[in-house]
């Protein structure tokens, strides 16, 4: 397809990325390590201990070892990473938000706080030798009792894990409005429950990795890292080392999945470049899977004590929740997680009174970052489980109680009496959430259970439904840059690094639309601090919204300026020049195209010496835009094993304009798959001593081909006015409601009795016990 006057937005173009990835020509971090020496980290084998000594002599003596380096050796003694997020002061004030800085050392030298915490780094000629040497480093520990339960960690008599802090409280928040106590008095039914969302996480198929190359010519170090946030890595690295920004380039190769675990800054991303500069050698660190499952940031791990009051018709009167987040030894994202959880507890419903208190606690488990949804799945699980419980008490169906409470076109836009994390008062900017609900039920109605039953004679079938809200496209800003190349083609760069989201395709579509050219004339680089000095990154369902809008602004400005240059070439007035698919047309019909324009900047050309066509734009949204959606699921619970199979799945969501519908759909489906994993399979488990026991893929179970069914997705087109291309975020939405929907379906399958799913991943032994109790009750 050549440039045409139809829009490039909204088209499911094939992805530019695919050609190289389908022929083995992707370049992931480990693929760029040629010529490097290799780093291997010495990690804590204890969950909580004082470090008495670190003896590196025998390791350093091993042939092939270049250095064994501790914090002191690297000049990093006492250094720690900066927190990555603090909420807006206005939000903090209203929510009485407070947080502490755990200041976890980049390399531990005095005390260790989790198994897997880095203590020293070995640099050797090969990865094999580096691993051999790491095993020879002798760390003498004085074991301390580990604290593994977040509620116990917050008890007044709990031992404090971080010496500079008075307690183990990582953060606290209070969000509320309306008179909860008064509202509750009028309740027909009040349900209370304790709901747990287990510890699991992103687990991308590519682990982490860093390659640091010393560039003596430019007196700088180039850091290639498998990250979603190169600019935040650069900032943190500079803050810790004191290096100037122009001494560090951070660039992103192909990234094999992120999902939040790589939207984090890691100690390893500091240690490897510091060691490279110290030794004057190019160093690669390529994480292995066991290392990832012990030491990379994990997610979720929340407990909610929730109480929902409804009237006789099922209308919500008041909603209370007190939750605790276990952020492990440290999280640079505590503020984001706890605030996301609190805010998303409101759901897409009319909630007249709410009282939420949340706390985050330090424990001796692995560090935590945002994982796809980052507090939203947990909030959704708490609210939706309570709605199901209330419906049951009232004798209503789960569908009915939701229809009673869902916001409709009459309610929307729906302002809430609290600010979002950016300090701007919340207003849901959707169209009709009840219509979205009905649309999902149309795709997958409860009756499907009955139709399927005879196909699964060994299973009890159940149906579940859940809804979610997702604030997407959080600021403060993102950068886009569009540059005309000498060939008449274009290069696009943004601060939003791609970890599989297809940015090369979607940002090219956005730019092509504004430049009136075919997307195949546009190349999009991955995250890199060289072409774009300031950026934020890819997380929080923000890239399409923010980076997409920034590219749109930059491309639009570039096109405007280009019209002026085209007018010079056409010897006419800029006002008379129109940019179309064929190029720049004067009102007398004469045309120059982008190739002519690019060539004219060359030596002797009409535009020689003119400022080049290279535009940089920042997009700053006024506030977030909200995506709402509904999940419906049919599960089969095997009567003998208690194992749950997901048989049918449907998602309807109120998304915005779509840049590439297939990519949006892929994000939603991929999110559901991860939600299925979290609901049924995945958990980071720890022994009573704090030893992680989910350190292989035989213990940490990822959903496979046979666990994820085909998932139907319906996109309801509700563009937002909050950004110039009308898009809403969708990257996390698929994961959010899967937990609650599957839990409801398992309840429905097991049916009756007192037992309900209150904890995920759903334990087959609990399901089996509930089935046994039901059988016993029927028999008696």
């Amino acid at each position: 397809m050549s440039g045409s006057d139809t829009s490039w937005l909204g088209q499911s173009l094939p992805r530019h990325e695919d050609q190289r990835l389908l022929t083995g020509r992707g370049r992931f971090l480990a693929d760029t390590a040629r010529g490097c020496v290799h780093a291997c980290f010495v990690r804590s084998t204890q969950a909580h201990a004082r470090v008495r000594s670190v003896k590196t002599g025998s390791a350093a003596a091993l042939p092939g070892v270049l250095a064994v380096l501790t914090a002191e050796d690297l000049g990093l003694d006492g250094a720690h990473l900066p927190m990555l997020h603090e909420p807006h002061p206005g939000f903090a004030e209203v929510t009485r938000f407070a947080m502490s800085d755990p200041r976890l050392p980049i390399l531990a030298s005095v005390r260790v706080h989790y198994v897997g915490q880095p203590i020293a780094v070995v640099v050797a000629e090969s990865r094999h030798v580096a691993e051999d040497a790491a095993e020879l480093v002798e760390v003498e520990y004085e074991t301390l009792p580990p604290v593994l339960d977040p509620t116990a960690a917050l008890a007044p008599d709990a031992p404090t894990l971080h010496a500079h802090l008075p307690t183990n409280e990582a953060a606290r928040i209070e969000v509320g409005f309306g008179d909860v106590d008064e509202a509750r008095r009028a309740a027909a039914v009040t349900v209370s429950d304790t709901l747990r969302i287990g510890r699991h996480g992103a687990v991308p198929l590519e682990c982490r990795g860093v390659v640091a190359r010393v560039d003596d010519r430019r007196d700088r170090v180039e850091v290639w890292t498998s990250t979603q946030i190169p600019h935040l890595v650069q900032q943190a690295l500079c803050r810790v080392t004191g290096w100037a920004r122009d001494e560090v380039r951070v660039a992103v190769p192909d990234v094999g999945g992120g999902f939040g675990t790589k939207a984090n800054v890691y100690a390893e991303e500091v240690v490897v470049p510091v060691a490279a500069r110290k030794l004057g050698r190019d160093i690669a660190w390529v994480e292995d899977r066991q290392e990832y499952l012990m030491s990379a940031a994990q997610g979720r791990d929340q407990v909610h004590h929730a109480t929902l009051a409804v009237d006789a018709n099922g209308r919500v009167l008041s909603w209370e929740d007190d939750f605790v987040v276990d952020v492990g030894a440290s999280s640079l994202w505590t503020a984001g997680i706890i605030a996301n959880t609190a805010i998303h507890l409101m759901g897409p419903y009319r909630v007249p009174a709410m009282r939420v208190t949340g706390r985050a606690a330090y424990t001796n488990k692995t560090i935590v970052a945002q994982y796809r949804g980052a507090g939203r799945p947990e909030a959704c699980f708490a609210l939706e489980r309570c709605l199901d419980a209330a419906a049951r008490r009232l004798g209503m169906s789960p569908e009915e109680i939701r229809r009673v409470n869902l916001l409709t076109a009459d309610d929307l836009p729906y302002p809430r009496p609290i600010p979002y994390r950016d300090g701007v008062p919340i207003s849901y900017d959707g169209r009709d959430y009840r219509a979205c609900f009905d649309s999902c039920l149309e795709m997958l109605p409860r009756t499907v259970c009955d139709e399927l039953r005879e196909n699964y004679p060994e299973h009890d079938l159940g149906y579940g439904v859940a809804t979610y809200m997702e604030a997407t496209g959080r600021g403060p800003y993102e950068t886009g840059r569009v540059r005309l190349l000498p060939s008449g083609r274009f290069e696009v760069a943004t601060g939003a690094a791609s970890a599989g989201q297809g940015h090369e395709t979607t940002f090219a579509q956005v730019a092509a639309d504004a430049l009136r050219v075919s997307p195949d004339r546009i190349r999009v680089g991955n995250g890199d601090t060289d072409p774009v000095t300031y950026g934020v990154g890819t997380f929080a369902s923000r890239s399409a919204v923010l980076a997409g809008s920034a590219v749109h602004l930059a491309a639009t400005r570039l096109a405007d300026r280009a019209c002026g240059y085209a007018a010079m070439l056409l010897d006419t007035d800029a006002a008379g020049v129109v940019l179309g698919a064929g190029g720049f047309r004067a009102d007398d019909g004469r045309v120059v195209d982008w190739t002519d324009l690019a060539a004219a900047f060359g030596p002797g050309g009409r535009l020689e010496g003119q400022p080049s066509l290279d535009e940089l734009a920042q997009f700053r949204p006024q506030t977030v835009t909200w995506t709402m959606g509904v999940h419906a699921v049919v599960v089969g619970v095997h009567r003998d094993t208690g194992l749950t199979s997901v048989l049918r799945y449907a998602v309807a969501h109120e998304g915005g304009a779509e840049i590439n519908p297939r990519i949006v759909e892929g994000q939603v489906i991929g999110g559901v798959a991860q939600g299925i994993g979290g609901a049924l399979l995945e958990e980071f488990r720890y022994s009573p001593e704090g030893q992680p026991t989910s350190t292989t893929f035989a213990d940490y179970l990822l959903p496979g081909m046979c666990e994820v069914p085909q998932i139907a997705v319906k996109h309801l087109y509700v563009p937002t006015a909050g950004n110039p291309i009308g898009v809403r975020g969708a990257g996390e939405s698929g994961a959010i409601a899967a937990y609650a929907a599957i839990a409801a379906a398992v309840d429905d399958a097991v049916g009756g009795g007192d037992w309900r799913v209150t904890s995920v991943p759903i334990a087959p032994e609990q399901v089996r016990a509930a089935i046994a109790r039901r059988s016993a009750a029927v028999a008696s």
Partner: protein
Amino acid sequence: MDHVSVRMTVNGVLVERQVPARTSLADFVRDELGLTGTHLGCEHGVCGACAVLVDGSSVRSCLMLAAQASGAEVTTVEGLPHSGRTARLRDAMSRHHGLQCGFCTSGFLITATELLTDADAVEAPDEGTVREVLSGNVCRCTGYQGIVRAVLEVAGGGATAPSGGEPAARGGGPGAAATAGQQR
């Protein structure tokens, strides 16, 4: 470190190297031959990202020593044909969005190629068969939907099972297999 001599044909080219005895086939093709399309996702034989064909059968190259493959014909993703069914599979994978980050893709292409070229395999495998054959490969991004559709399209098999409210075929399907999978 003891070195061993290995000699094998990789993507049609005869190669001979002295390598440390502990060198895995994966490290051999990646580090010695620079064929980095073979990816390491777990290095303990679960994820399937490192699959290569050894004498026509898919193996996990992280679990095989280079020395064990001595004398064999090895095909990595770089050596898969650019015509015929594999080419159609690549095209179908792209059209059905069967990949996002692309890290697992090489392994899926290898395993699916084995399925599509297996003379003993059923003529037109159904969705259940495709899922079972590919169940040794993990994808964390796509939810597998596009991969299944792509393989079915090229295999000339039936349509995929319904996702929403359409009634299912009797037995089989993702649900029945899921029970087994969850017991891993």
